[in-house]
């Protein structure tokens, strides 16, 4: 036994000589001759350090941050822990949580029979809240210390003291672990032998959630504390711990902390005895065989896309094959910052979300991870989306200016949501997430149409588009043509033009023998109906189905083209004091041309009449010129000159009396045609 001890001492000493040259003592202000550096812990990101400055009279918990140049800032007292109670107390073993927003530590009041219990203090809204004791299931009547929360937040490691006769001169502890299930910490279990085999404490589980570093005294108490390394197989079964012999030497090494990359270890080293005892903090590059498995560190900020303000959001790390949420992380409310680790050899789906906001998904594979990787990813979520709604006529695809109504699906009540018309038939609707809506389009003369839009689930794009087609209502329209004298039905071809689209929709629709026809017309549309039957005067009229009270039938009385038939050409008019035709005359002139072409057997007299204003001679001349003007137009459009005679009658043949009224004057200013001859075929 003695031989063994001697040999071990020799071995350790030798290795210690070689490797201790690589241990770097942290400079001031971390280490100082004015105090002992106790229980140091470096955060996962390697940028924060927490430890206890122990002097003769006090133990102060301090925090230091890493400067840009790699040096450490002057430590600041963590007052929320140092001065939170008036009763004197001792603190030990402070550590950060993985995201640095919580400090766990153990505390014992300076009272009789008091024991160390584990406390935590959380950083909320950028400020430290008051410390609180953690779960009763962890803190017992014994001393609990050396708390440590696994990076996934699912396992809580700590040390609980017990009597060990083999290590009487040490305050002995065992390492325990409690698992979180359904939000509650379970009864802690001790790590099995040989993990716990001496006095074991300061458990630190690395970012890979498998590699455990801890401090232990085992084999021979004279060798003091050393830092050990063990790996978890599964659940609570472990591969036997190995001392990190490249650190271990005659001094006490304890309180290891291993930041993210897993390549460096920080620890406390105590040497000397009694008054000459020093405790300092060191750092060391861990040999590869002791390094935890490589991980990927994701970090960044979640913010609101609308105003860039930081958001408190949840990040679920999911196994894509099973959809099981492996663990979740919540961002800081004030800064929106997040941080988590992914282990090597898997694939993950990361889902970032917040109620009432969009989701953000991305996949990540770590199967071929060769080294520690940091990924910065800032993510923006948004609370509303833009729905581009296009409303069309489902027959002719014309975009429609409809009224858009938005209803809450649950309450069926109309929502006061702004609908912005961008173009004819196109609307932008801003809809808050987290609700289901009914979107309805209404337009007169169309059947209403609606659809449901469920925004309660996962939304990943801030804009999408929907088309909504409205069905035009159809009206059964009846046209009857009959002879104005005999009342008999007239067979003829009816031309129906949609005046909105200028489309001849019925070109050659024939009435039946009774002169009737039924057709379906689009509601809310204006049509021109024209008939030019052989042997009859032409007829055209406008049917306005925009008016809800419009008739749905028309009874046309056609005048047979006989000698002495007169037809008023009401839409033929002229510029003032001129024989120049107005533009508005041309439609009627086209009808007249068609009449003459369809009925070459008739000869007409085109007559122009004036009112009684001005001299008779002037009126006569003017009317003659006007009649001539119409005649010239007809000839220029291939009408046989033989068919038309033009006459100006001036004011001599008024049709409406009394002639002095303005109304009758307007009516007397007219152009007419009279059939003066019908050649029998």
């Amino acid at each position: 036994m003695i031989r063994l001890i001697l040999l071990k001492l020799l071995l350790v000493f030798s290795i210690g000589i070689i490797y201790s040259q690589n241990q770097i003592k942290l400079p001031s202000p971390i280490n100082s001759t004015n105090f002992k550096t106790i229980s140091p812990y470096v955060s996962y990101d390697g940028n924060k350090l927490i430890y206890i400055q122990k002097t003769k009279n006090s133990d102060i918990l301090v925090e230091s941050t890493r400067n840009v140049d790699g040096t450490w800032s002057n430590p600041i007292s963590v007052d929320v822990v140092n001065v939170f109670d008036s009763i004197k107390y001792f603190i030990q073993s402070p550590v950060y949580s993985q995201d640095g927003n919580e400090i766990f530590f153990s505390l014992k009041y300076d009272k009789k029979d008091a024991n160390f219990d584990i406390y935590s203090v959380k950083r909320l809204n950028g400020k430290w809240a008051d410390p609180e004791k953690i779960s009763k299931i962890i803190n017992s009547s014994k001393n609990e210390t050396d708390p440590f929360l696994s990076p996934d937040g699912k396992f809580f490691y700590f040390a609980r003291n017990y009597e060990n006769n083999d290590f009487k001169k040490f305050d002995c502890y065992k390492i325990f672990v409690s698992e979180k299930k359904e939000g509650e910490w379970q009864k802690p279990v001790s790590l099995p032998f040989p993990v716990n085999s001496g006095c074991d404490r300061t458990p630190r589980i690395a970012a890979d959630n498998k590699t455990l570093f801890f401090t232990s005294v085992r084999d021979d108490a004279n060798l003091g504390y050393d830092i050990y390394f063990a790996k978890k197989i599964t659940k609570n079964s472990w591969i036997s711990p190995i001392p990190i012999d490249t650190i271990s030497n005659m001094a006490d090494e304890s309180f290891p902390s291993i930041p993210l990359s897993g390549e460096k270890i920080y620890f406390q080293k105590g040497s000397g005895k009694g008054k000459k005892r020093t405790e300092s903090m060191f750092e060391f590059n861990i040999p590869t065989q002791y390094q935890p498995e490589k991980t990927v560190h994701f970090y960044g900020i979640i913010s609101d896309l609308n105003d860039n303000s930081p958001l408190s959001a949840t990040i679920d790390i999911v196994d894509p094959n099973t959809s099981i949420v492996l663990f979740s992380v919540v961002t800081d409310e004030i800064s929106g910052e997040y941080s988590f680790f992914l282990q090597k050899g898997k694939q993950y789906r990361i889902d970032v979300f917040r109620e009432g906001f969009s989701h953000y998904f991305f996949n990540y594979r770590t199967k071929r991870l060769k080294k520690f990787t940091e990924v910065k990813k800032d993510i923006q979520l948004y609370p509303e989306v833009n729905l581009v709604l296009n409303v069309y006529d489902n027959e002719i695809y014309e975009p429609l200016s409809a009224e858009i109504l938005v209803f809450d699906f649950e309450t069926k009540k109309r929502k006061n949501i702004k609908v912005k018309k961008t173009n004819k038939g196109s609307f932008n609707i801003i809809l808050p997430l987290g609700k289901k809506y009914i979107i309805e389009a209404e337009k007169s003369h169309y059947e209403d149409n609606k659809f449901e839009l469920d925004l309660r689930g996962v939304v990943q794009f801030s804009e999408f588009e929907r088309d909504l087609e409205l069905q035009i209502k159809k009206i059964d329209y009846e046209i009857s043509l009959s002879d104005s004298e005999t009342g008999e039905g007239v067979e003829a071809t009816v031309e129906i033009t949609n005046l909105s689209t200028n489309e001849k929709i019925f070109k050659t629709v024939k009435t039946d023998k009774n002169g009737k026809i039924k057709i379906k017309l689009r509601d809310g549309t204006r049509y021109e109906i024209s008939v030019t039957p052989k042997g009859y005067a032409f007829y055209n009229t406008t049917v306005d189905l925009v008016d809800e009270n419009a008739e749905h039938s028309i009874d046309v009385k056609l005048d047979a083209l006989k000698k002495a038939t007169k037809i008023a050409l009401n839409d033929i008019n002229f510029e003032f004091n001129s024989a120049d035709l107005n533009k508005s005359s041309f439609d009627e002139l086209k009808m007249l041309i068609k009449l003459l072409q369809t009925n070459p057997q008739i000869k007409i007299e085109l007559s122009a009449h004036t009112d009684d204003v001005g001299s008779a001679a002037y009126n006569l001349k003017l009317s003659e010129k006007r009649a001539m003007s119409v005649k010239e137009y007809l000839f220029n459009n291939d009408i046989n000159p033989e068919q038309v005679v033009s006459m100006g009658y001036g004011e001599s043949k008024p049709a409406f009396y009394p002639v002095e009224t303005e109304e009758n004057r307007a009516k007397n200013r007219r152009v007419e045609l009279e059939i003066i001859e019908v050649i029998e075929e």
Partner: protein
Amino acid sequence: MKQLKVIISLFFVIFIFGESLAGKFPDYDDIYDVILTGDKDKAYTLLLAYQKRKPDFANTYFQLALIAEDWAKDFNPFTEYYYAKQFIYNTKLYYSLAKLKLADEKKKNRKYYINAGIAKGERKFKLEDILVFIDTQTESIKVYEKNINLIINNYNKSSDAYNKCVDIFMNINTEYSKIKNIYLADNEDINNKLKQLEQSFDSTLVYFDLFKSALKKYPLEGYDQEYKLKQIVTYRLDGLTNTNFLNKQIILWDYKTWIEDLKKTKNERIKNNVSDIVRIENQIQNEIKQLETERYFEKNKEFKLQDKFVYKIEKFDNNSLLIKLFKFNEAKLNYFKFFRNSINNPITLNKFSLEKNATYLHNLLEKQQKADSLNNIFNNSIKASEVRKYNKFYMSKYKGVQGLKDYSIRQDIFFKQKKKDAKETIKKRLFNTVFQPYSNVLTYKTEQIIVKKNFPDLSLSGNDTYNVCDFKKTKTNKLWFSGYYKTKSNKIQSFIANSDGLYEVNILKLGNISEKSNCVNLLIDAYSEGAYTIETEISEEEIKNVLIEYDNKGKLIMKKELPFSKIPRFMAYDDINNSMIIIFYGTNINALAEADNEQLIYYLDFENNTNTYTISFTAKAYVFDIIKLNNNILVFSNFVNYKDTNNKNQLSDTGNFSNKTNVLITLISNREIKKQVAIKNKKSIFGTKAIKINSNLINILGYKADYINRKFERLKKEKLYNIYIDSNLGQIKK
């Protein structure tokens, strides 16, 4: 170096003579007790540690195998497949190692095999029993492994394939912000993605069925999933989430139907649209090509792009480049059709009046403006992303993006040329109308008369010649002309004549002749029944003017002395109102040489003398036309200078040269000058005719040339001056 040697030596010493560094370690009985407690975690850890110390002890492996076997089946193969696999392997490994080491197993160690239940109820069992047990368990774990692998592999393949679908679909949604862009996309990339999506979805369902078959053969408690398809309704909202394949009912986005619907829309609606596009494009281009054969038509039906077609295209392609192209082509075609109207045919100069031509030119320019504007809109919209939507069409018809840009630029040349041609035609008509209606000569008895406008140079005229000063054509094509006859004895006698045809003079009436004075009919205006002329008698002492009216047969209807002793420069008869406007200016027959600057405007109402009036304004100006507009009278002059309504002197921009003029418009209303507007230009403008296009638009035609009195043929070479003004005398840019 010496230090190192020492250390290495010490290493050997320690490892040769030293005990395990583990120190105090439980013996196997203790470990077996832990095994019997059922704490597998602890037992497994201890066994592993013991195995390192005593690697030949068979029971270590046996016990490790038992625990591994339990764990292998304990771990959920779906959610903890890694561990299940690991412990299946460990089970096989440890059983095989146990079997290997059992050969050396001591009898006393049999007690450590009891917990396996090898020989039920019997305490004593043989080595062979253990071996059989091991073989049985090994076989059992292999069966388990095989079935689990089949189930999990198919499960993973199905879920992997489905996750791939989601990824591909997300990729498509990211690249194509609207589904309509996919309808119109026809490139390898999107086609590949759709194909991959389809294949991945097929794989999802195929592997799921295999997974179900495997589960049926080897059921796992709690797992009997079924899937249900969910329709993708809203693009960019639906179809983007993964699903939990562990749920009893798995909801799968129906990518297959989505792709089918997409293809249907592409193959039906889009394809139809493309057919229509090609058809209409061909129609337009064919018609344009036909119009290039230089035929002219009396009537040409306008081409109209159907609204329904436009709507159909824009439904899938909002703010479509294609529609912009078509609207421009439509405007271009209709412009070209209109251009080919016979009125624009330079050989039909006599068939259409100048007024008709002016209206036509105005309409043509409006159509051109519209086409230009549409061309600009089209040009500004040409982008590669737009061209990709109907890539095949644009490539085949226009050679892609650059081709479209070139096409747009070429239109400028097209329209410029057409505008130039149209202006040439109206210029010819203008000359015909104002200066020379025929190029052929009329015969009167044996005399030959060339009918053209000409200010007289009495000294230059030959003896026994008829010299035309002015002419007018009626709507019935009767030509009236007037001037003077220089007798054989050098006397100057006024005459007036008319002609129906192109060669002979019907009537010629000689007017006054005087020994001491020259009588000329400088001006004439005709109407349907006859004509008016002013016989101006010029002597050294005075100028007399007599207004004379003849009917179509040459009979004298009226003679009226006019109370003005200035040279008449312009006259216009209003046959509807039976009134006359005559403008007098100066006493020198050559207006250019005239020093006087008083313009007299005489309005004569034949019906009611009380309406007759005279007004004047100060200007060195040469009146070229008068128009009645909405009861106002507009007088158009070529001016050198004038006094405006504020009595201020105004000069033309060409300086103070009597032959370099700009255009002045004087508005007379209620017998007074209401407004005067000068249209200034640095170039000299020779205004020639003003035409009323409509009640709010007047076209001023002329030449960009100096003012001349004679040899108007020179004007044929000058550029046309063509401007438009509204009823407020504001100039309208065309």
